[in-house]
């Protein structure tokens, strides 16, 4: 036991001390935060007030009404929000093209430049009849700008048409009002206060964390075994430790590093989400709408289930990665040989998506008893509705049994593999190694 601790400590301490660990620990939350903040920053910049020239070729008051509608449009909500457009109207009945052409030299300037217009909107009587309006500007590729403009104009045009048909706009709006489905999750016969989106996000996040950890840290286990083989330190280790001690120490040590890193990230995410108003406010970005970011809360029961299955899953897959590492002498060989292990990781991860629609269906029940997949499937199912204790217990037993079987197989491969150099092992070698007493 003492020796395994020594190996675990070495793996943990040496890994945590590396610059790579520090960088990835810091950069990942920075990256995540950037994903939230940067679109917000970009959006707030692109929604400055635009100077618009309206070339009005309409023969009635439509052009006037449209101009005032545009002038009334605001960025964001509330009366004090800045205007979306400053509009200059050019009456141009019968000579829309001439007026447009005369405006072109002062159009398409950058927003910061003085004078001129960012775009020209050409409307005519046919805007109502055929729904055609024309826009000329440098920002025509901006999907958001164009959509914004369309949305501002559309109700006006529709209202105008309805008026023509003698229908009251107010009544129509009343009639076409949609319904808004508010969701609330029921678990254990109680309302949990979680929405459907939050439930999905949580189930997805748990699968993603396991998936990423396995890919990153499973690979690290594999690579460090190949490194130990290549610099032959493995001979010194093998003369002092049993292969089982070496392998288990490494897998657990690396696993603890993974847990530490995820813990730091989860902590950072929770902190950020709790204080995002302050943080974003400090950066001059409003924390509303699409940028709102919330860490789904986890019940203690779910957290336990997740940690149990994360640990079991990590041990199971990391042991498999260790066996692959022991079978190879070069990283190139390893990237080929790890494919079967990776397949299971992928299948597990994607089964979360497949099963989330029907978490208590037959497929979900069956996959809950496949040891390689349970670490993905069970936390997902549990997050949607807690499993009966019997089913949960059985799933844990199955996973533990599968984990032990894989660790046992892996340690037998590892035992022979770590001291075999040269070409990578074949499946036949592998079977022979497992059978060697």
């Amino acid at each position, binding site marked *: 036991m003492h020796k395994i601790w020594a190996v675990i400590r070495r793996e943990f301490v040496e890994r945590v001390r590396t610059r790579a660990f520090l960088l990835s620990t810091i950069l990942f939350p920075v990256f995540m935060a950037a994903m939230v903040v940067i679109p917000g920053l970009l959006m707030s910049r692109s929604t400055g007030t635009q100077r618009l020239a309206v070339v009005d070729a309409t023969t009635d008051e439509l052009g006037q009404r449209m101009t005032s509608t545009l002038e009334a449009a605001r960025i964001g909500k509330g009366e004090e929000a800045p205007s979306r457009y400053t509009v200059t109207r050019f009456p141009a009945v019968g000579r829309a093209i001439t007026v447009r052409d005369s405006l072109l030299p002062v159009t398409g300037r950058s927003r910061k430049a003085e004078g001129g217009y960012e775009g020209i909107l050409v409307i005519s009587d046919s805007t109502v009849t055929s729904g055609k309006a024309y826009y000329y500007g440098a920002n025509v590729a901006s999907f958001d700008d164009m959509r914004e403009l369309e949305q501002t104009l559309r109700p006006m045009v529709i209202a105008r048409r309805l008026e023509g048909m003698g229908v009251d706009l107010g009544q129509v709006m009343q009639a076409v009002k949609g319904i808004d489905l508010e969701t609330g999750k029921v678990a254990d016969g109680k309302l949990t206060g979680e929405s459907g989106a939050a439930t999905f996000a949580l189930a997805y996040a748990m699968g993603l964390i396991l998936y990423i950890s396995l890919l990153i840290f499973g690979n690290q286990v594999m690579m460090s075994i190949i490194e130990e083989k290549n*610099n032959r330190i493995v001979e010194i280790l*093998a*003369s002092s430790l*049993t292969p089982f001690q070496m392998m288990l120490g490494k897998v657990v040590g690396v696993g603890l590093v993974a847990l530490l890193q995820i813990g730091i990230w989860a902590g950072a995410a929770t902190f950020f989400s709790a204080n995002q108003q302050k943080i974003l406010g400090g950066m001059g970005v409003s924390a509303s709408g699409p940028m709102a970011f919330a860490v789904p809360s986890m019940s203690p029961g779910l957290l336990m289930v997740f940690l149990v299955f994360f640990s079991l899953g990590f041990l199971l897959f990391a042991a498999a990665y260790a066996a692959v590492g022991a079978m190879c002498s070069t990283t190139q060989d390893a990237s080929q040989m790890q494919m079967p292990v990776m397949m299971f990781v992928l299948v597990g991860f994607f089964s979360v998506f497949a099963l989330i629609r029907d978490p208590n269906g037959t497929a979900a029940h069956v996959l809950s008893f496949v040891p390689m997949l349970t670490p993905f499937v069970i936390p997902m199912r549990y997050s949607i509705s807690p499993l009966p204790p019997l089913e949960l217990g059985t799933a844990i037993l199955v996973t533990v049994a599968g984990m032990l079987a894989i660790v046992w197989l892996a340690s037998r491969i590892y035992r022979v593999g770590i001291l075999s150099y040269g070409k990578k092992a074949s499946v036949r070698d592998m079977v022979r190694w497992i059978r060697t007493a």
Partner: protein
Amino acid sequence: MSSSVVKVDNVTKRFSGHTAVDQLSLDVPGGGIFGLLGPNGAGKSTTIRMIMNIITADEGKISVLGGESSRDLSGRIGYLPEERGLYKKMKILDQLTFFGEAKGIHRKTARAKATEWLAKLGISDWALKKVEDLSKGMQQKVQFIGALLHEPDLVILDEPFSGLDPVNSQVMKDVVVDLARQGKTVLFSTHIMEQAEKMCDRIVIISRGKKVVDGSLAEVKREFGGRHVALTFTRHADRAARVLADRSLVAKVDDYGATAECELAETGDADRLLRTLVQEDVGLARFEVVEASLQSIFIAKVGIEAATAPAKETVHA
């Protein structure tokens, strides 16, 4: 001398197609320095790895310190593998502490011992440096410490002196001799005969996986017999070579240019050789009737083509 510490009994190991070790038996008694000698590829490292239970023998039995598996007794054995390996990114002191812990001694003790050894070998200043910053010789010292810091009863060193400069070689040699003086058993392999001759109490020479010589150094020399003369001449090497090529006088020559070791022929005697050499005016600086050197025994037993030690050429008249 106590009973045997390492016993290798009729052990055979085959690697795809060739037999690396062929029915080899060794008996390493407790205490003293045991040399496992042989040319490159003779099976020395394979034998040592089997003793260390890193690879398993195809046939035969090995017992170490009275047990079957050396790993169970790893705390009493120190091992320096031929293929040196250290964690490159780890600090020296941490690395040595880990090696100690892997051998089952307590963390604090391991740290204290490591510090002590680093001071003894004069590399204390490097204790907190990473392995990758060290020269090869220093890395070898670190590994050497790794094999010894848990105070093993049996120390197995695979080519401990290869790649070391004379000064470091001397330091390591002193440590090894000191261990033997403390009653520890040292088993080491080498193909450098001068070293083995100066240090070993007992030797085994293997060639192509088979044992060719076994016994105490004195026994081996006595058995090999012959009358040998060690010579050093200071001029007219060509004339000296001509004298030594006389097969009625000299049976065999191991010529190093300025020095030579020769075995007298049945018909020759030392007096006549001395007279002839003086006549030829070769400026004799040394003329000594000696026992055969391990080098010449090695070459005679292993065969000149298999030997890798320097100066293999004989003189052609």
